[in-house]
C-alpha cells in the first residue's frame, strides 16, 4: 500500500481518522465494521488519549435511579448551553444516549451496577427531572475509570475490526486540492522524524481540546488543539472559541482537578478572612452552585483582595472540619492528589484552589452528521468535501456556551458513530481518490521545513509560557473590553515572536522539541481566535463573562461566532433553535 512519492512514503485509505480518543475510535469502528479501510493516526499511543482522564461518567436518561427521559435531558442541555446549543443536534444526542450506553456495555465497558443489576447512575450538576424540577441521576460510570474503560473497549474493538493504527505519528497539515476537497494529511513519524503522506477520500479530525491555551488547566500536555489549528491553516473557521469552561476548583497554580465530590461531601470554600463566601453569591446552592457561578465567585474574591497566600491569588477548599474517616473513605483520590501536588493533607489543612481551564466548547463547525460545514458567500453553511470532525475539537454545537458534566463522553460516542455513518455514505458515492498534486504536498512540507532554520532565537518553552500567562491574565474567567484589547495586542505580538523561534535540537529521532514547536503554532493561532472572538462578543453568556456587559443579550448575540485566520475575520451564523421532532425551548433566564 505504501509507495514512494516525491521521496516521501505514501499510504492510501478510504478514511483517515486523526485522533484516537473516544471520538476518533468510535468513528473508526463504525467505518471498519462497514468494511472501509481506515487509518487512525495518534500522536500518543491510543489508550493514552485524554479521554482516559474522564472519571465522572457519561449521561443518558436510562431512568435507573430517578425518573428520567431524553426530553428532560435535552431541556437541561439546552438550558446549560445558555441557549447557544443547536437544538437539532442536542435532540439527536439525547435521544441516542441510552442506546449507545447499552452498546458500550456490550462492547465490554464495565458500568457500575445497582443491586437490581441495572446500570448505576449518579447525580451531576445541571440534571433535572421534568424540565427544571427535582435533581435527576443521569450519569453512568464505570467506577472512577469511565473514560479509560470506554477508550480501552473501543481500542480492542478496532483491533478486531482491523483498523490500521499509526501510533506516535503527528498530523501536521491537511492536504487540500484547488477545488477545496480534503485529500488527507501530511503526518510526521515521531520515532524517525520522517514525513509521510496519508491519502484518503475522507478525513476526520478528532484531536481533542485545547486546554493548554491557559497556564492553569486540567488537561494533559497533549491537548494543544492541533486539529483546530490545522483547520484554521486550511482556511476553515473555528466556531465559538470565546466559550471556554473553567472548573472552579483546580489546585492553585497547578490546575489539577479537585472534583465537585469534595464539596458534595461537605467541603466548602473560604477566603483569607475565613469567610464561607459562597453564601453571598448563591444563598441556596452555596458551594454546590453551577461551575460558572462558583468560578466567578472565586475570581471575584481574589480580584477584590480577599484571596489567600502571599500574593492573595487563591482561595481555600476546606475539608479539615470533616471526619477523617469520611475523607479517607469517600475522597481518597482527592486526598492523594492534594498531598502529592499541593503538599497538603486535607485532613489537617485546607487546599489552595483557583479556577482552572477545563473544556473547549468551541471548535471546528460541523453539522450533526460530523460534516465540517462553512457558510458559502453569505449563504447557508455547506460541507467542506471530504472533511469531518468530532469530539472536543468540533463544535456541533451541543454544548453551546457551557457544557454540562457528563455530556462530553456522550458527545464523542454519539457523533463519532454518526460521522462514521455519514462517511460510509460518502464513500459509497466516491469510488476513487482524487489526484494528489505535488503543490498540495509542497505547502505542508514548506510549513514543516520552517523548523529546520538554525541560529539563535527564542525558545518554544519560553514563548508557550508567555502565551499561557497572557491568556490566563487577559482572557480568563472575567473579561472586559480594555483588558481583552490589551490581551489581543499581546497575543499578536507573541504571534510575531513565533517567527523568531528557533529549535536548538535538530535531531530526527523522537524530537519532542520539534513536536512542541508545531503544537505551539496551533496554540498561538487558537489564542488569537479566542481573544478576537471574546473581544467582539458584547454580552455575558455561559462561560463567557463580560464585566462590561453583564447580561445575556439574545437580541444581538443569540448567534455562533466564526473566526477565520485570514485577516482575523469574524462572521456569525444563526443558532439552530428548531429541534428535530419536539417543540423548541425558547431562551429563558438561566437560574438554578
Amino acid at each position: 500500500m505504501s509507495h514512494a512519492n516525491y521521496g516521501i512514503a505514501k499510504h492510501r485509505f478510504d478514511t483517515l481518522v486523526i485522533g484516537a480518543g473516544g471520538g476518533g475510535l468510535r468513528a473508526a469502528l463504525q467505518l471498519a465494521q462497514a468494511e472501509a479501510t481506515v487509518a487512525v493516526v495518534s500522536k500518543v499511543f491510543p489508550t493514552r488519549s485524554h479521554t482516559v482522564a474522564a472519571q465522572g461518567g457519561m449521561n443518558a436518561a436510562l431512568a435507573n435511579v430517578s425518573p428520567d427521559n431524553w426530553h428532560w435531558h435535552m431541556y437541561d442541555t439546552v438550558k446549560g448551553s445558555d441557549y447557544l446549543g443547536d437544538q437539532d443536534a442536542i435532540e439527536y444526542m439525547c435521544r441516542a444516549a441510552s442506546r449507545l450506553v447499552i452498546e458500550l456495555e456490550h462492547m465490554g465497558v464495565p458500568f457500575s451496577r445497582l443491586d437490581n443489576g441495572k446500570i448505576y447512575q449518579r447525580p451531576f450538576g445541571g440534571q433535572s427531572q421534568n424540565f427544571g424540577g427535582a435533581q435527576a441521576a443521569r450519569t453512568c460510570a464505570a467506577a472512577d475509570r469511565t473514560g479509560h474503560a470506554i477508550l480501552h473497549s473501543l481500542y480492542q474493538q478496532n483491533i478486531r475490526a482491523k483498523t490500521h493504527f499509526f501510533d506516535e505519528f503527528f498530523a501536521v497539515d491537511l492536504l487540500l486540492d484547488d477545488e477545496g476537497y480534503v485529500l488527507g494529511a501530511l503526518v510526521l513519524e515521531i520515532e524517525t522524524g520522517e514525513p509521510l503522506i496519508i491519502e484518503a477520500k475522507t478525513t476526520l479530525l478528532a484531536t481533542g481540546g485545547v486546554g493548554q491555551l491557559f497556564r492553569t488547566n486540567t488537561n494533559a500536555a497533549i491537548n494543544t488543539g492541533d486539529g483546530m489549528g490545522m483547520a484554521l491553516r486550511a482556511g476553515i473557521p473555528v466556531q465559538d472559541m470565546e466559550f471556554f469552561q473553567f472548573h472552579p476548583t483546580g489546585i492553585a497554580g497547578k490546575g489539577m482537578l479537585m472534583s465537585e465530590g469534595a464539596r458534595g461531601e461537605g467541603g466548602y470554600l473560604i477566603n483569607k478572612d475565613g469567610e464561607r463566601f459562597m453564601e453571598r453569591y448563591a444563598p441556596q446552592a452555596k458551594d454546590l452552585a453551577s461551575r460558572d457561578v462558583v468560578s466567578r465567585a472565586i475570581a471575584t474574591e481574589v480580584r477584590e483582595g480577599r484571596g489567600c497566600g502571599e500574593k492573595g491569588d487563591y482561595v481555600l477548599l476546606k475539608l479539615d472540619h470533616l471526619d477523617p474517616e469520611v475523607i479517607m473513605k469517600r475522597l481518597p483520590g482527592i486526598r492523594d492528589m492534594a498531598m502529592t501536588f499541593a503538599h497538603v493533607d486535607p485532613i489537617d489543612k485546607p487546599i489552595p484552589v483557583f479556577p482552572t481551564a477545563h473544556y473547549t466548547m468551541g471548535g471546528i463547525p460541523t453539522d450533526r452528521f460530523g460534516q465540517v460545514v462553512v457558510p458559502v458567500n453569505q449563504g447557508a453553511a455547506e460541507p467542506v468535501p471530504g472533511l469531518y470532525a468530532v469530539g472536543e475539537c468540533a463544535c456541533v454545537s451541543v454544548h453551546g456556551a457551557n457544557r454540562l458534566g457528563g455530556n462530553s463522553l456522550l458527545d464523542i460516542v454519539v457523533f463519532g458513530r454518526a460521522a462514521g455513518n455519514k462517511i460510509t455514505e460518502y464513500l459509497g458515492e466516491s469510488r476513487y481518490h482524487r489526484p494528489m498534486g505535488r503543490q498540495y504536498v509542497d505547502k505542508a512540507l514548506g510549513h514543516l521545513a520552517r523548523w529546520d532554520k538554525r541560529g539563535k532565537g527564542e525558545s518554544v518553552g519560553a514563548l508557550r509560557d508567555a502565551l499561557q500567562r497572557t491568556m490566563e491574565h487577559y482572557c480568563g474567567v472575567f473579561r472586559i473590553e480594555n483588558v481583552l484589547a490589551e490581551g489581543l495586542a499581546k497575543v499578536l505580538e507573541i504571534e510575531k515572536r513565533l517567527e523568531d523561534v528557533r529549535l536548538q535540537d535538530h535531531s530526527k529521532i523522537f524530537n519532542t522539541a520539534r513536536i512542541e514547536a508545531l503544537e505551539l503554532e496551533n496554540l498561538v493561532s487558537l489564542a488569537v481566535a479566542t481573544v478576537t472572538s471574546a473581544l467582539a462578543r458584547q454580552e455575558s453568556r455561559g462561560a463567557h463573562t463580560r464585566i462590561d456587559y453583564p447580561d445575556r443579550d439574545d437580541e444581538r448575540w443569540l448567534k455562533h461566532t466564526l473566526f477565520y485566520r485570514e485577516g482575523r475575520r469574524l462572521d456569525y451564523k444563526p443558532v439552530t433553535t428548531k429541534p428535530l421532532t419536539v417543540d423548541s425551548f425558547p431562551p429563558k433566564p438561566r437560574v438554578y
Partner: protein
Amino acid sequence: MATFEQNPEASDAQRARLAWQCRRGMKELDLLLQSFLDALFDGLSQNERRAFDLLLRYPDPVLLEYLMGRMVPVDREMADVVLKIRRNG
C-alpha cells in the same frame, strides 16, 4: 517500538523516546513523569532505566495508582523507581 531487551539503545535516543512516552492522557502523570525525567533520568542506572521504560508501558490508570501510592509494583526495581518519582513530585 523495540523493547529495551531486544535492542539496547544509545542513551540519548532512549531518553528522547522516553521523553515522548512520558506524554500521557492525564495531567497528573505528565507532571510527575516529566519532572522525574528532567531531574533524575540521567543519574539512573541501566536497570533503573529499564524499569522506568517498562513502567511507562502500563495503562494510565495503573500508573496513577502507582504514583499516588495506592498500589505498589511487584517488581522491586520498578517499585524503587516509583518511589523516586513520588519523592521528586
